[in-house]
């Protein structure tokens, strides 16, 4: 069982008390316990079991405008005494920074709603094994599948965030995650793909058969890929890739990138950065949401933000430090976004495929090719050639490149949004990107 609230609160208040006694003018502490149990299968047999029990604590101490922090996994009071003493010593020796401070008192979250983020259900390893047997049977049904690796993880976490302003709160969360990675082979090629499902509640998890079938089918259809020539062409990002465009957008509007001047979206609030119909929301209070939270990692309340309204950027993602630097109030985004998504577009997936006589449907990208300083984008990709709305053949060993400033203005979204991850996008069409191939 994960440690209860009382245990975590006792540790937190011990740290705050000691920090104060040693001379901290302010301090904040987070104590967290996370227990994960995983079972892995490979080729229909048990391959690995893994249990992890992580208890950790991180404390930040302030002396006036000086600040330092420590973290440790050793929560014995003996050790905490040494570390907090060290932290105070380091704080004294660290130069002042006028923007260092705890959040303004009026911004702390006051009520903690039950967002339905914790499922009491405990799934024993033998139940995980039953699920994985079913999943792997479905995944390896076709003889083109030569290798399967599947995994089932149950995670239970609990945390307490407390600070010297009197904020002290936390709550339990759970997740159940199943995944399947399959390898398919024919005379010409060997390809890999995957499918995945992660939910707060066990009963919401995808059916094992369905997951296995999807993983296998997505892999088999990639066999015998071709390489295409270099050209300008319309790109369609599968949902699992399209969400990455949204993640890049989120990094580029983080207040730290903005205050440091290292983002291509600096000074773009109230300007049109996306095409007309695009709306982006960050909604922390979705029930059972994979990114849901009651407050951010500083304890600041989080309201739903419409980040982009009809293509116009409305907010940055602001934490206390960078907010003070930018002369803006924190909007509870220390630690990033919660449930971030593009609102549905108004055409169907099928119509999206049909909107150009020829396009590329991208199912996987590799490489770290997003530069948020310049907006330049260049990644390796695999996917399919689409002609007249039909999947023609798989393609690989190509790159796609552009600049986010242009790409954002050329986005068309389908109406097939689902909440599979914390960050979600409908299928996305971007006109006119450069593909390099042969």
């Amino acid at each position: 069982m994960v440690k209860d609230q009382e245990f975590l609160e006792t540790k937190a208040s011990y740290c705050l008390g000691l920090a104060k006694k040693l001379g901290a003018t302010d301090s904040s502490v987070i104590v967290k316990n996370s227990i994960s149990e995983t079972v892995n299968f490979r080729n229909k047999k048990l391959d690995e079991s893994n249990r992890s029990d992580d208890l950790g604590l991180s404390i930040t101490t302030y002396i006036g405008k000086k600040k330092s922090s420590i973290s440790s996994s050793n929560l014995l009071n003996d050790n905490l005494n040494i570390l907090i003493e060290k932290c105070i010593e380091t704080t004294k020796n660290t130069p002042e920074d006028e923007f260092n401070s705890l959040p303004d008192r009026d911004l702390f979250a006051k009520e903690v709603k039950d967002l339905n983020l914790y499922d009491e259900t405990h799934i024993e390893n033998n139940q995980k094994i039953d699920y994985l047997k079913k999943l792997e049977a479905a995944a390896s049904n076709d003889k083109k599948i030569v290798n399967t690796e599947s995994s089932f993880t149950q995670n239970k976490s609990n945390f307490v965030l407390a600070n010297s302003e009197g904020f002290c709160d936390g709550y339990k969360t759970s997740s159940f995650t199943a995944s399947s990675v399959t390898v398919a082979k024919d005379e010409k090629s060997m390809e890999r793909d995957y499918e995945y499902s992660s939910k707060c509640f066990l009963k919401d998890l995808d059916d094992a058969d369905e997951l296995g079938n999807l993983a296998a089918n997505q892999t088999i259809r990639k066999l015998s890929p071709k390489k295409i020539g270099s050209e300008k062409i319309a790109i369609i990002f599968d949902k699992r890739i399209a969400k990455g465009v949204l993640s890049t957008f989120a990094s580029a509007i983080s207040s730290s990138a903005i205050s440091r001047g290292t983002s291509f979206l600096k000074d773009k609030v109230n300007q049109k950065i996306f095409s007309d119909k695009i709306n982006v929301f960050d909604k922390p209070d979705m029930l059972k949401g994979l990114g849901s939270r009651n407050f951010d990692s500083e304890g600041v309340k989080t309201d739903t933000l419409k980040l982009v309204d009809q293509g116009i950027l409305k907010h940055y993602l602001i934490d206390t430090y960078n907010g003070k630097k930018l002369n803006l109030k924190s909007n509870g985004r220390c630690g990033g976004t919660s449930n971030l998504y593009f609102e549905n577009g108004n055409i169907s997936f099928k119509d999206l495929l049909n909107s150009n006589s020829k396009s590329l449907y991208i199912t996987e990208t590799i490489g770290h090719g997003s530069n948020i300083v310049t907006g330049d984008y260049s990644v390796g990709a695999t996917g399919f050639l689409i002609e007249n709305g039909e999947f023609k053949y798989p393609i690989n060993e190509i790159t796609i490149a552009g600049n986010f400033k242009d790409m954002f203005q050329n986005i068309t979204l389908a109406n097939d949004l689902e909440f599979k991850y914390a960050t979600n996008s409908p299928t996305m069409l971007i006109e006119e990107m450069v593909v390099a191939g042969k």
Partner: protein
Amino acid sequence: MSNFFEKSDVSRKEAESIISDTLQKCDDGELYLENSKSESILLDDNKIKNSSYNSDLGFGFRAISDEVVAYSHSNEISKNSLKQSSENLKSTLKSVKGTYNHEIPKSNKKYYDNINPIEQKSLNEKIKILNDVNDYLRSKGDKVKQVTANFLGEQKSVEIIRSGGETLSDVRPLVRFNVSVMVEKDGRKETGVYGVGGRQSYDSYLKDENWKSVCDEALRIASVNLESKPAPAGEMKVVLGPGWPAILIHEAVGHGLEGDFNRKKTSAFHNLMGQKVASEGVTIIDDGTIDNRRGSLTIDDEGTPTEKTVLIENGILKNFMQDRLNARLMKSRSTGSGRRENYRHIVLPRMRNTMMLSGKQTQEEMIKAVDKGIFAVSFGGGQVDITSGKFVFNCTEAYEIVNGKIGSPIKGATLIGDGPSILKEVSMVGNDMMMDPGIGTCGKAGQGVPVGVAQPSILINKMTVGGTKL
């Protein structure tokens, strides 16, 4: 060295008996104990943004029967938590039985000193250097708009206790110093990043103001990029500079030669042992034994002494990199490549310092041999799809080559290639092998470990360059 049982309610003897009892019917396994101390000091935007210290203690208990691995880890080194882990392992492995396989080669060699780099330099000294770095770079002109510099220091003590009480231990220092600078001219912004590091004291990198050369390099890269033009798109010849660009070797072939992917037959190399996989003259080794290098290890995380493993010799595939599990199942031997990020993770076969050895040609000859292509000097990160063999990496400093001459700098572009065939496209191997500056971290299955790379300049006949200019 850490005494892991000093403040615990379980004595070393009791721990040994729990280990022997748990592993008695298993093929392999061990108790891995780790105590690490690390610090991070960051200067950003003219200020010391962060000074933090982390102390981490825990164990990972592993039992292996045939192909099945059971693992359990915890922060608490106590009788109760060891017994709980033991029960957990036994419950997974209850239906399998194996014979215990036990043999670790002995070695007295050490590749770094038993030091704690964090304590060797005071916080004030480190803060002073970071402030000096900031002042130095900002004195280089108005175009410098942002400077980030940081120190990362670590001391990790590990102990491996095997069934029967055999104990192996290691104390590993690691430091890294990094500088990132953003410049702006006529509204255009570009960044340059450079860093140094390894398994020794900060002073090995920072004495006599030699940090200035790190700053100069970061600024040089940023300034070059200010003048860069859009990169070309399509297939062309590529000359790679020496040193850090060897992450191409790491991505393109290194991962594909790790034992696990080959045992599972998911690597594009799994059926190519003894065959020609690279041009003649291409020799690639993975070496854990170079003094003070970031990727070096005295023993790996299973206790096996590291070694210099020849992967490809003169174009022929010779060896995979192995940990104990994969070596046993492939009827091979451990190459001392069993590594883990920390006690929270299981051991995987990983790279250490992956190096392509020098050939005979000069870089000039290579440039001259290219009519139309690019010259790539530095890279950001890379990634590989083990199964299809396709890999990418991102240029952070590159130039076009026109008619045998180096031309304008080009914007960061992704290069994509095919791992199993790329080394056959190497047509010249330079005489200028260089190690990287000591900054690499390799990610695999969610675990990051420090690694090194090295290579001479090489000419690749054909790669796809992912620019925007058709």
